[in-house]
């Protein structure tokens, strides 16, 4: 699992990146009550705001850390947005993106570097 400075995580299998927000990020946001996900088929660019997480208090943008095409979104979040709080780095994933530029992955941090980044 790799992490971006915007607090998203990425795992890659067969050229498809699964993306979510980090445990640290969900802790900062507080209770998640709604997640606005992109449409499947949307072509996204790295660092673009593609989703919104709504907590009781505020709305926060989610930036996709890699470029490509959205091939799947997590439908479970519509019925149970609190998955983002309970299992941010597993069942609470946001979207899968078919990578168009795998070189972008090298800009991401590993777990140790991310933990140091968030202090």
């Amino acid at each position: 699992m790799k992490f971006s400075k915007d607090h998203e995580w990425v795992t890659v299998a067969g050229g498809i990146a699964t993306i979510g927000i980090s445990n640290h990020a969900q802790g900062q946001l507080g209770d998640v009550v709604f997640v606005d996900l992109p449409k499947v088929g949307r072509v996204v660019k790295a660092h673009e705001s593609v989703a919104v997480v709504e907590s009781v208090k505020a709305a926060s943008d989610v930036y996709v850390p890699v470029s490509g095409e959205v091939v799947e979104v997590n439908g479970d979040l519509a019925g149970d947005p609190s998955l983002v709080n309970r299992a941010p780095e597993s069942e609470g994933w946001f979207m899968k993106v078919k990578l168009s530029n795998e070189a972008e992955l090298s800009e991401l941090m590993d777990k140790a570097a991310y933990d140091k980044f968030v202090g």
Partner: protein
Amino acid sequence: MDETALRRTPLYETHVALGAKMVPFAGYDMPVQYPTGIMAEHKWTRESAGLFEVSHMGQCSIIGPDFETVAKAMEALVPADILSLKPGQQRYSQLLNIQGGISDDLMITHSNWKGLEGSLYVVVNASRKGFDFAHIEENLPPGLVFRRYDSLALMALQGPKAEEALAKLNPAVKALPFMNSGRFDLAGVEAHVSRSGYTGEDGFEISVEGGNAARLWNRLLEDATVKPIGLGARDSLRLEAGLCLYGHDIDRTTSPIEAQLQWSIAKRRRADGGFVGAHRVQRELLGGVSRKRVGIKPDGRAPARDGTEIQDESGRKIGVITSGGFGPTVNGPIAMGYVETAYASAGTPIQLIVRGQAMPAQVVNLPFVPNRFKR
């Protein structure tokens, strides 16, 4: 001194020790939530008892030769009936500007404190206290004295178990009716207690010397039914209760009639006027208003925040959301805002423009959660 530095309330260290997340609010460093989070704090207040610190709010007194003189001076500034307040009784009102817009909303109490009988005790919003204090003081007739209480702390104990919890410190508080107040000894601390709040629940607002605040706060938290609640849940609780937040649902451009606060203006004051801004209030009471504050329930799950454009079904702009978020007790998104009067009745279908998309919603009656005040 750094003028941008945040001010600290008497309980600042206590909040930090409890693990609160502190945020800037109206120039103060305030707890927005404790480790359990806004959702749990909100629900706890509705089911048990929540303890809030609101010392950032402004407390003051207007003192004069007799109550009638003091009440008349206050009636020149607010549309509420102050003269009929009995000792200990309090009333909600608004300070108006000459255009009839709202400069602030406030609580006004006919004091029954020993030594201060016949004076008015007033609590105003933190963000407006600089303006309010100057405005009130400047407008007092000769012979009246304005006194601000910067050293006082203020806390609120709210929820269905608030009475039971406070009565353990002094059973006499049980006898206080809603919107009444008095002096009580609470665990050895002299406190001014009023039966009021900002959550829609039964509860108390408690004013004590800043130096005694931590002692009373910690004593109340020893009760297993009482937990500390931050400003985040305070906001979601008051929104569910349909209560206005100054700077959002009411401001210098909105009148009490547009804001649907006419319940706070007595018959005598409507007929006689004689307060700053009376011209607009009287005109609107007779002739109606072009926009009204309403409750709004989005059909879906996405919250619509402050500033969201409201459209009719044809896509014409008819208003704007002034408070919006998620109601934990409602278990869904809720909002308040202003719409053109033709769209203000409950059940009217409207659209909210969230991130460029039109979201269906309905105008609904306020509050979202029934008030449970102790009448």
